[in-house]
């Protein structure tokens, strides 16, 4: 099978993702969880922010958004799903505070991260695609 530029670019990205995931294993600690839980909109720790940036920079397809249902909430988690009404699938759980919704997004990503570790022993960038971590 002839390799294309797309294949080569994907290999390069996967190489980077593998290294990034290895770093995540050591840097995605309980302290990051604590800092984010305290204030998801103001994390001032360098290491924690590196973890957050990796989580937040994943591909848009399947990624979480927060959906606001009224002038003062409540808020729900949602996932970008092209083809669904509004290109968004809204999840049933609601939150009275959008910062709690942000914490819930983080928890979902944390759970996925731990799950992928359990399955593979290492984080796989491609497994993030639909998790939208």
């Amino acid at each position, binding site marked *: 099978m002839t390799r294309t530029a*797309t294949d080569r*670019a994907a290999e390069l990205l996967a190489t980077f993702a593998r290294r990034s995931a290895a770093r995540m294993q050591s840097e995605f600690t309980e302290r990051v969880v604590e800092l984010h839980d305290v204030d*998801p*909109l*103001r*994390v*001032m720790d*360098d290491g924690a*922010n590196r973890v*957050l*940036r990796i989580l*937040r*920079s*994943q*591909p*848009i*397809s399947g*990624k*979480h*958004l*927060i*959906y*606001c*249902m009224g*002038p*003062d909430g409540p*808020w*729900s988690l*949602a996932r*970008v799903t*092209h*083809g669904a*009404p*509004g*290109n*968004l699938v*809204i999840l*049933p*759980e*609601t939150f009275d505070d*959008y910062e709690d*919704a*942000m914490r819930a*997004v983080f928890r979902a990503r944390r759970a996925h991260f731990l799950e992928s570790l359990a399955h593979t022993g290492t984080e796989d960038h491609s497994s993030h695609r639909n998790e939208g971590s």
Partner: protein
Amino acid sequence: MNAPADVSGSQTVFGYTNRLSVLPGEEVSLHVSCEGPVTYQACVVQLHHGFDGSAGPGFLETVVPTRVDGVYPGYTYRCQPGSYVEIDDPSGLTSNPDGFLIRAAIFPTLPRNDRSGTLGAYRISQSSVAFQGQHQSVLGTWDSATKTGWALTLEDGYPTFMWSEGGEPRTVRVATGVTSHHWYELVVETPAGRGSVSLTCTPIPHGMNRVAPAADGLHPEEVRAEATGAWAVSAMPLRIGALAALSEERLVASAAFNGKIGGVSIRRQAEGSAWIARWHFGRSGRADGLLLSSVLDESPNGLHGRCYNGPVRGVTGPTFQGVVEDFRTAPDQFDAIHFHDDDIEDARWPIAITFDVPVDMQSGVYAFRLTADGVDHHVPFFVGKGSRRNDVALLFPTGTYLAYANDRIAFEADSMEMLLGHTPIVHAEDLVLQDHLEFGRSCYEIHNDGSGVVFSSFKRPLITMQPRYRASFMSEGTWGLPADLSITHWLETAGCDFDAITDQDLDREGFELISNYRVVITGSHPEYMTRTELDALEEFTARGGRLMYLGGNGFYATTSYDPDSPHVVEIRRADGGTRPHQSPFAERRHVTSGESAGLWRNKGKAPERLVGVGMSAQGFDRCTYYERLEDSFDARAAFIFEGVGPDERLGDFGIIGGGAAGSEIDFYNPVLGTPPGTLVLATSGPLSDTYLLVAEELYEQLPGLGGTEQPSVRSDVVYGALDSGGGFFSVGSIAWTGSLAYNAYENNIARVTTNVLRRFRDPEPLK
């Protein structure tokens, strides 16, 4: 726990106006499409406050009794994107392809559904719009309903010529699909009567091709097919860049092309190879050389054309030599137009309501409020000065509203969340927009083919201009018109009548529009300004006027309005500074003004010269407060801080990120021209590292660009008095307006702002 309702389909009535601003005594028309309901209600409302959360005064509008009040029949109209040139050919010279020699150069940018990678500043990896480019028309009259006419197209990326013999479609197609971002010349020869149809596709070696000729592997191809000569002519007009299709008794675009087309000509071989048409897309018929909507045919037949839906002109063509950057100096090298299948400049819906603005109508922000199925849709417009001119004008940054109009980046960009430092928060309006992608994109996005969006227009429904709209990046704070309605309500609460003016008004009339005001107040985000506007404001303060800049990221990027179609704003992007995307080399010249694209600071008109501050950073997590500096205790500034304690933190509250300092911010930067006597009154508190120094301040990559390390990442409040007796007060923060109404206006941000307003209205010269 409750399952939220599916809200994306709840909005069923949409509209837009033929103008954004209108004077008392003038007329504004409303264009409406109603999806489903047989009727809708309409009335005129005055908008007082937008943000509808409980942390503010709430959404405030008053119904203005007018003859608009009533129930109207609802009709559905398509808003069909896709840009094209339509040729005026009343004699039908192009209808019958008998003996044609057709030439066209093409530079396809999305011949197949294979766009890959992350594009633009926000790393857009996926379009919300499903690929619809299986059929892309270069030019033709083909009518798919009657299977008549002819067309030169790309079918699944393969150059194809199609014609009709007695109502039966015939095609000839080359064997190799075209490569994206490469120039080709397509030549079609049809027989006079029975004979052979030929189509050749020849790659053009070109400096702007994506891959160099030595590596591109492209080769000329020719195919032939026999034709009977029984051409079946269509009733459709000749279009370049799309075909015509009938919809609701209108001809809309179909089979829209993505990419550039140039060097288009048609000859009739049977008549000594006489020209039927030779269109020149780089040639202007105007004395100023601007390339607006008119397209010239240089043949004796004068088959001129007109652009629809805003294709991009002033782009490099098949003969571009790689040196000249201004289309006006070498028109032959700019003989091309870039078409997009998602361009929309005017939905062209019929007029539903015409409103004669009463001569005694108070200046302000109004809207047509349309209601169907219990859901409102507002179509805002601004009523300008009446017979009694006020001494204060509020300059609504409508250029910025249009630049951000219908922004949908949260659904397409990988890096949006990283940029914000939080998960974007979307609302019902965003889902409505996702279900109505035909309403077009903002100037922060890329087209389906990956090129940047450089035009916006208000002749289409503008979901982001709804008065209660909350942008996904603002953590439930205000942005755009809703943010500026915070200024409107503050002025009303302060008992200050004002005249509403817009960017388009100031661009059109210049200094004369504001010459008699004592105070001009900006909106929260006057980013996109024209040269005429900047000149007018400079003259205003130079002649004693007082400018209150109540925003951030102001006076920032080159903007132009189409002189023939002022509903169209043009914002191209240069190769430097903070920018969402970048126009290609030699395509950075505005065709509607001749301006070179980019930041005003790079063109000798830094905002610091006008208002003392210029953009320093942006961030969207938490905003912060201001702390007073030594100049705030200067006697010249005493009026500003009346009623404010010496140690008070200013604005440690608000609906935008919880503080008055943040979002997009400006700093005192004297090297770019801050008037020397300017007082630096206050500076922002700590900002996080999601606030990063702007790219234009960065010449090489340096570590430590965030708010915790980089001293220039800050917002400064400044006051400058000029020799003219005029001057400026600048807050350098988009978040400022979100703090005005806190605690029912009993707060130090409202106090400072009101103090400034009171003094600025006083004719006594500023000191």
